[in-house]
């Protein structure tokens, strides 16, 4: 299969404040994020040809929760529109495909979630195989700890290097005092796990000519791929991430060096595993944004990674990698390569 030939670029993005809890509804959050992304570009909702929203009913706590978000995109007159029950990074993937059909120029994609309103330990078991795994009631921390043990056993991480990831990502604390804390689930301590965050992110995409009219330096999407794996973590090699490797290869990561990588690593060991699988050297700046360890707005966390990678291009960078994930122990992984042009 030949790679798609149409230029598609990220031209702007915006987020709400990322907070531990907000009383605003998801629709209000999206209203703010979409306006925030469009306004600096001199665009309004009437200019949007296609929208794709990413959110999750179980995070929001009601069926059809995305329907009211149509108010935030201003779908009047009616919009070409879609919704994915996935992180906004996959909404971006759908819009990227859709723009390549060539009949439209501008798309807005979003990711949104208010995970503060639920208990992850109760919600996440429901994404497991309903017959064999969900009944165990194992929470995300438990699965992450199993993978952390495998990653440590493979020599890709140790508790100290994990604490170093936490300190670097959050910009606070010192490794020795973090390592003196008790375990939450051995080998994970509080600093190894993500915060609970409410927030929404919106991103604007445009096809080549339109992108160049609107911004000086579009962040061109030059590679985009995602892959899934077997669901049951006990049938997987947890010290590896083959789906990330395939996605990176299909996205052309090896074609040229990247300066920065934004990885959706909600747990410290995940960053170390992903670095290894992606072959990122010490010269690659990883998660300068603080990553999911600093802000983890579920269903927007992956889209934020792409936004931060785009910021690197907007600021004059050449090539950046963004990664998103879904499912227990990094079951499904997405890789997006962004590039700037002289």
């Amino acid at each position: 299969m030949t790679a798609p030939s149409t230029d598609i670029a990220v031209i702007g993005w915006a987020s709400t404040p990322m907070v531990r809890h907000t009383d605003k509804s998801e629709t209000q959050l999206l209203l703010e994020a979409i306006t925030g992304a469009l306004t600096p570009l001199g665009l309004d909702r009437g200019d949007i040809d296609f929208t794709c929203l990413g959110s999750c009913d179980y995070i929001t706590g009601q069926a059809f929760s995305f329907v009211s978000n149509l108010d935030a995109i201003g779908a009047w007159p009616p919009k070409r529109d879609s919704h994915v029950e996935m992180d906004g990074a996959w909404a971006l993937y759908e819009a990227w495909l859709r723009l390549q059909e060539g009949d439209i120029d501008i798309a807005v994609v979003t990711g949104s979630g208010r995970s503060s309103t639920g208990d992850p330990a109760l919600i996440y078991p429901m994404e497991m195989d309903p017959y064999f795994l969900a009944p165990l009631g194992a929470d995300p921390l438990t699965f992450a700890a199993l993978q952390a043990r495998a990653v440590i056993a493979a020599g890709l991480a140790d508790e100290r290097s994990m604490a170093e990831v936490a300190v670097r990502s959050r910009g606070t604390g010192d490794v020795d005092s973090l390592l003196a804390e008790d375990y939450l689930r051995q080998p994970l301590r509080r600093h190894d796990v993500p915060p609970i965050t409410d927030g929404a992110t919106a991103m604007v995409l445009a096809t080549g000519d339109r992108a160049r009219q609107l911004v000086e330096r579009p962040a061109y999407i030059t590679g985009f791929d995602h892959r899934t794996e077997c669901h049951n973590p006990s049938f997987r090699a947890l010290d590896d991430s083959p789906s990330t490797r395939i996605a990176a290869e299909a996205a052309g990561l090896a074609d040229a060096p990247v300066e920065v990588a934004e990885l959706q690593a909600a747990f410290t060991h995940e960053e170390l595993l992903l670095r290894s699988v992606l072959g990122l050297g010490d010269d690659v700046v990883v998660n300068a944004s603080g990553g999911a360890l600093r802000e983890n707005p579920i269903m927007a966390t992956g889209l934020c990674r792409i936004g931060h990678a785009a910021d690197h291009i907007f600021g004059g960078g050449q090539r950046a990698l963004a990664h998103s994930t879904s499912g227990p122990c990094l079951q499904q992984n997405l890789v997006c390569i962004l590039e700037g042009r002289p």
Partner: protein
Amino acid sequence: MSAPPVAVVGVGQTHHKSRRLDVSFGGLVREAVFRALDDAQMTLDDIDAVVLGKAPDLFEGVMKPELYLSDALGAVGKPMFRVHTAGSVGGTTAIVAASHVQAGKHRTVLAVAFEKQSEGNAQFALGSGKGASLGAGGAFAPFIRAYIQRSGAPEHIGWKVAVKDRLNALKNPYAHLKIEDISIEKVKASPMMWEPTRFLESCPSSDGACAVVLTDEAGGLAAAAAGRPPAWVLASSSRSEPPSFPGRDPVRPAAALQCAADVYTAAGITDPRRQIDMAELYVPFSWLEPIWLEAFGLADEGEGWKLVDDGTTELGGALPINASGGVLSSNPIGASGLLRFAEAANQVRGAAGEHQVDGAKVALGMAYGANNQYFSTWAVGSSLHPFD
């Protein structure tokens, strides 16, 4: 620039029933997937990406089931994409899968949609996880009453649609409801559910799945050369509009009109009533048939009920609607939209069996969701240029 052609080369569905206790979620989707692959003379190895659609996860209590179903769908090592656009989701699933091919990113894509209503409580979920839900029937009844009031349609129109679709279902081996002695009298005598909708004018709750194999122009031509005619996607569109506000007309939704206009313009359809040979419209309650006939330009405004009354929409009429028996006969919610798209494809492939519309060359598949807000439609043809 126009997007490259996409062909439907395989279609499969389950036997839809109230309770498919004989299969797991995985077993249910595989039943449809392997029928579609057999139809396409392919195996899972030929599939480059999988797109899964279903209605709210709260229907079954399995969150993001594409994770658990990656093994059953043979998606390990491949892209697995999950769509959810309310009741229109099955249709949108097909459109997103087609987009995967049109973008040139993937050659052959499997679109799958399912619902296993028996493992959960859809009415509970429709009420957003609260009891005492109006359900879909209660939500749509005011729109139906408004249509009747505006059009002056006589009350037997709803009964006629219900009888027609149940008679068609008798010719469809996969249909859920098989009511051999269906009649106007029987529909009329069934309990009133949501005025004016009676029990037999309402869709069932079904367990079921549907799968469609889409591929590029070369794949479509190869299937045709091997004596397995594909259905060519002539055009598609998904449009949405916001929840209620005073200027919105849920009986003749702007999103439906725009969705139809998108498809007709792109497919070169100028006279839908004559150029379209049959349509599979999403009709979960009988009166939605005349409502959608009008919104999709298959009848003039206020005239849709007359096509029901004079038999135009019957199998054997000039414009058969829901020859498969439609949503009124099988309703695995998430799959119901994909079934409409798949049945339309089978008609132009000449593969609809006993409910085949003679000589169907162009067919419409349509699905809608939420409170008449989400619309997905595709037009398929027996050739890429059926009007030349």
